[in-house]
């Protein structure tokens, strides 16, 4: 059985699949209390479906991009679980998850706003194959990169202005499970968040600006 966890977006999701068959899915709107509510949600979800943690063979976890803190909560739970019960983790992109939203067109662009005209985005086709890799990208640059001869649709929760139709996310976890069920998975020690962005302190250091704690 596969345990699927997503804490990267505006919803927290716990789902259990037996092969590609969905057993149970619980989804709650995220609030500031994700840290206190995620494990209780996992516990109640498994209890409701009468599944014991020991029955879980693999963990699929969304590793980002998205809220840094949000991602870390899901990934820490997945890492600890998989490490201690000797399981593998299959890391999933939040953008790929968003791209499972049904759309009318050739390509879908899952987009997560990252402020200052930047966003996290990738480009996927109808089968969920990656056309342009996920990245932290300036919106202008993204728009320039998009193929001109294709029918493109954006999927996002955020208020953005783009010259393409925008659809609201309506994710299909079953699609992700079907696509990745046979992935080999990674050692839990090596499963880490996929932020797609360095910290500001690291960026500044590369530019040669030392972080000045005296100004804190």
């Amino acid at each position: 059985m596969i345990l699927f966890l997503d804490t990267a977006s505006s919803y927290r999701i716990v789902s259990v699949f037996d092969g590609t068959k969905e057993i149970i899915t619980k989804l709650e709107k995220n609030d500031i209390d994700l840290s206190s509510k995620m494990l209780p949600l996992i516990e109640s979800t498994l209890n409701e479906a009468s599944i014991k943690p020991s029955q879980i063979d693999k963990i699929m976890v969304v590793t980002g991009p998205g809220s840094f803190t949000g991602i870390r909560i899901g990934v820490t739970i997945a890492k600890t679980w998989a490490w201690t019960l000797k399981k593998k983790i299959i890391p999933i992109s939040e953008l790929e998850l968003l791209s499972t939203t049904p759309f009318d067109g050739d390509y879908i662009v899952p987009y997560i706003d990252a402020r200052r005209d930047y966003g996290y985005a990738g480009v996927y086709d109808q089968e969920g194959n990656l056309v342009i890799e996920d990245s932290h990208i300036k919106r202008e640059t993204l728009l320039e990169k998009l193929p001109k001869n294709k029918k493109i649709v954006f999927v996002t929760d955020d208020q953005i202005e783009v010259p393409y139709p925008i659809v609201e996310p309506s994710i299909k976890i079953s699609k992700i499970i079907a696509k990745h069920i046979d992935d080999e998975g990674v050692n839990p020690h090596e499963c880490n968040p996929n932020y797609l962005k360095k910290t500001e302190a690291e960026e500044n250091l590369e530019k040669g600006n030392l972080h000045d704690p005296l100004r804190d």
Partner: protein
Amino acid sequence: MKKTYILAIESSCDETSVSIICDGKEEIATVVLSQMDTHANFGGVVPEVASRMHIENITMVLEECLEKANMKMEDVDAIAITYGPGLIGSLLIGLQAAKTLAYLYGKPLIPVHHIAGHIYANNLVKPMEFPLISLVVSGGHTELIYMKDHYSFEKLGSTLDDAVGEAYDKVARVLGLHYPGGPLVDKLAHEGKDTYSLPLPLDDDSYNFSFSGIKSAVINLSHNEHQRGNEIITENLACSFQNRVVEILTKKTMRALREKNVKHLIIAGGVAANKGLREKFTELCEKEDIELTVPAMKYCTDNAAMIGAAGYYAYKIGRRADLSLNSKATDRLQ
């Protein structure tokens, strides 16, 4: 009597640490992974970088500790976790790991206040005797605590602004010393003379402290001297700063001991390693017949062993948390 083994996790700042402690006093195994070298590049702890490093290392530190102890998760009786205070993003990593383990193994989860941990580090040296007064001095905390028994904390006072260790690191930066410069200031202070006029910070009837003013005084003095073309005598400025800080810390602590009629003093936290502070307290405590305990160096800085020691006594009095436990950046010690 059956022994109680506590697995403790600490990740409140820039150390990822896991420890297994028996009966609150015997250290079975401890692993501490410090991020200090990384943060030194930035001149101080960067919270987002700290969180990122905690998550990369948490399962490896857990594994190493269990291997070192030659124990399995099934062998531990309870899981103790630093829930706060500290950097929220850092705390969250240890917290989620602890809650996951508590859930999977059905073990009790014990929430431990970081300051309680610093105090209980002393129990790993020798059994604490009550009543006692504890001065907790570190990069994040400056608190004076009265304890009439195990797990009974009465805060007498604390810093109103910068923690003492924070002031040390900032002064070190003004003196051109590499982060974390606190220990270097202490070393320089021993080579210098008290020649600079600096104020005794918050010299009043309370048990509170304030180190922001003296830090600013050092910064201003240094700037003014530079503008006048005068060279700063680094050792002397370090000595003058340290003398003032040590004087106010010892003055208020000794007064608390007298007023509360307490004969046991324990010093805790990273700044407990400060030689100037240890020397002065040793001298004053001898004079006033106070028994002084200072933890070994390895227990002064953040570590999970101290959380396991505190966690044992919290466990004994029935402190428990469920899976909804959250981290807290600030919280009262109780």
